[in-house]
């Protein structure tokens, strides 16, 4: 294998390219479908963002992007930034994301530490199996479940509140409660699944460490504090940094399923706005500009966070 490698790379003539393609035609053929698909559905749409700088007319079809395009420069962006929505969308998106990180980041760590202390393997297995489950259900289903719990008319939680002599609360149409519904349902959905990676790290700890700590008289709590938790620090900081990179992704489908115009004030995020203005109101150019604005910021954040993750010893991709 190594001989082939040096052979392929030592000959840098233009001929070498054709030579390589023929030599490894089987392997290149295997990746060809992916290349074609990506060119059409991933790379061409990257060119398609030009409509954010145009006043794209849907009836012109593809030509509306090329020869018949009306270029308007940054008009769409200026419209968005000066609009009433801009501030609200930015604040809502970042607020929901940050709250999700605030609660959703420590939750799986705590769960993993607790599961690690549970010695009844059968019980542990059952808990794990159940806790992963919500990760595999769509937000359509989860929203159905959340609504049936929270609805003011016959939701289980409200019936409980009424039985205790309280007033029913409409969690999903109240601007204050709504973001908490988003935050807690997302933690609830993801906590089990996200704990897997922490549990894997914990199970890699040398048992001798625990044994010698026992000899030294350490309690379980001290074991968690001085052995289990420190072994997670590296992973924790990397995952935290990475989650900062996705701060403009506040959970599109979840919000779309649960929100209503009544809670746009706190619940409308950039992604749902792009969806409404693009797919529903057919303002293609404007909506693309908003989407591109989000991508640009998100990409910058990703580069920055990736840089920091790289500093921490993680294999980065740049």
């Amino acid at each position, binding site marked *: *294998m*190594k001989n082939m*490698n040096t052979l392929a790379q030592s000959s840098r003539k233009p001929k070498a390219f054709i030579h*390589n393609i023929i030599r490894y035609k089987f*392997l290149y053929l*295997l*990746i060809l*479908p*992916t*290349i074609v*698909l990506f060119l*059409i559905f*991933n*790379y*061409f*749409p*990257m060119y*398609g*963002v030009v*409509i954010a700088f145009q006043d794209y007319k849907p009836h012109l079809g593809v030509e509306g992007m090329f020869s018949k395009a009306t270029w308007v420069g940054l008009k769409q962006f200026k419209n968005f930034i000066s609009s009433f929505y801009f501030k609200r969308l930015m604040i809502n998106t970042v607020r929901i994301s940050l709250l999700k990180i605030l609660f959703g980041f420590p939750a799986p760590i705590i*769960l993993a530490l*607790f*599961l690690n*202390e*549970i*010695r009844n393997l059968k019980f542990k297995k059952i*808990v794990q*199996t159940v*806790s*992963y*489950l919500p990760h*595999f*259900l*769509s937000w*359509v*289903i989860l929203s159905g479940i959340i609504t*049936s*719990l929270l609805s003011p008319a*016959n939701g*289980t939680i409200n019936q*409980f509140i009424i*039985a205790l002599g309280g007033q029913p609360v409409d969690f999903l149409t109240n601007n204050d409660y709504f973001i908490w519904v988003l935050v807690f349902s997302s933690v609830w959905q993801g906590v*089990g699944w996200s704990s*897997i*990676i922490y549990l*894997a790290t914990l*199970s890699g700890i040398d*048992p001798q460490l625990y044994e010698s700590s*026992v000899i030294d008289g350490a309690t*379980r*709590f001290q074991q*968690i504090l001085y052995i289990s938790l420190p072994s997670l620090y590296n992973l924790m900081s990397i995952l935290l940094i990475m989650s900062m990179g996705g701060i403009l992704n506040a959970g*599109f489908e979840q919000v*779309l399923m649960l929100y209503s115009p009544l809670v746009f004030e706190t619940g409308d995020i950039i992604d749902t706005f792009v969806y409404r203005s*693009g*797919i529903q109101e057919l303002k293609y150019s404007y909506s693309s500009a908003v*989407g591109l604005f*989000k991508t640009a910021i998100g990409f910058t954040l990703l580069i920055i966070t990736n840089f920091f993750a790289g500093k921490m010893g993680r*294999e980065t*991709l740049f």
Partner: protein
Amino acid sequence: METRLISLKYKNSKSDIVLIGIAYTTVIILTFSIIIPFLLIFLQSITPRSAMTGEWYSIIPKQVTFDAYGYLLVSSKLIIKAFKNSFFLVVIGGSLSLIATTMAAYTLSKQYLPYRKILTYFVYIPMIIGGGLIPTFLVVKFIGLYGSLWACVIPGMVGSWNVFLMRNFFREIPESLEEAALLDGANDVQILVKVMLPVSLPAIATIGLFYAVGQWNSWFTPSIYLNSREQWPVQMVVRQMLAQFDWTSVESIQDMEELLINIPTDNVKKASVFIATLPVLVFYPFAQKYFVKGLVVGSIKG
């Protein structure tokens, strides 16, 4: 873990007992917070309206009716069609995704392949940057996939993340295996099909499962690319039922009358949620061991 279990023969101190108590309580609460809502959904789907007294403690229904399921699975053509459509997406869409992903991952796993780096970047870049919703939507429209179930299969057929996950699995296979097969005179196709694929079966199962679950759960893609009810997959029907059980989703006057008389719409809503959950509930325990392994190997090896 096992050694730790055996070696700890010392007596738990008081603080240990408190800690274990907290640990058990927390995980039990979490487990119940997941089981109970599903149980409630099921119970609410079979409790007739007359028996719904509105008392929170009357969890066990005094009367039981399966009319909602009868309506959804027998009288309503919508959900039967939806199952067919979802079946197509899961089986055909899932298989195509799996095949294309395995092929691409195998190529990228070959360290000696010229231009491997460029190809890796080519697959990686769409993971971090994309054209966004509208430009992608327009491309699907221009190509003529709009309004066809294939629009839910082809554009998202290969996921970069899954390619890298699979590539990492292939990399784990010792090179000597391939070299031995080469010495035995096997050709490229034989090496892949008879040597590499059988060894990677757990990985293939994991990725296949990810795609299948993804297709079963997919609502957004079908909702923007499909335009006729005939093509709706299960998730879209459920969404429609939840959003508004409107009269247009009842197909004939007869149905409507029957519905008005016999079936409280609330039962139908809850039953539709339960039906859409069921396939995941059934397949999930069998598949669990694979995907856990898959996630851990893939994410640690980065």
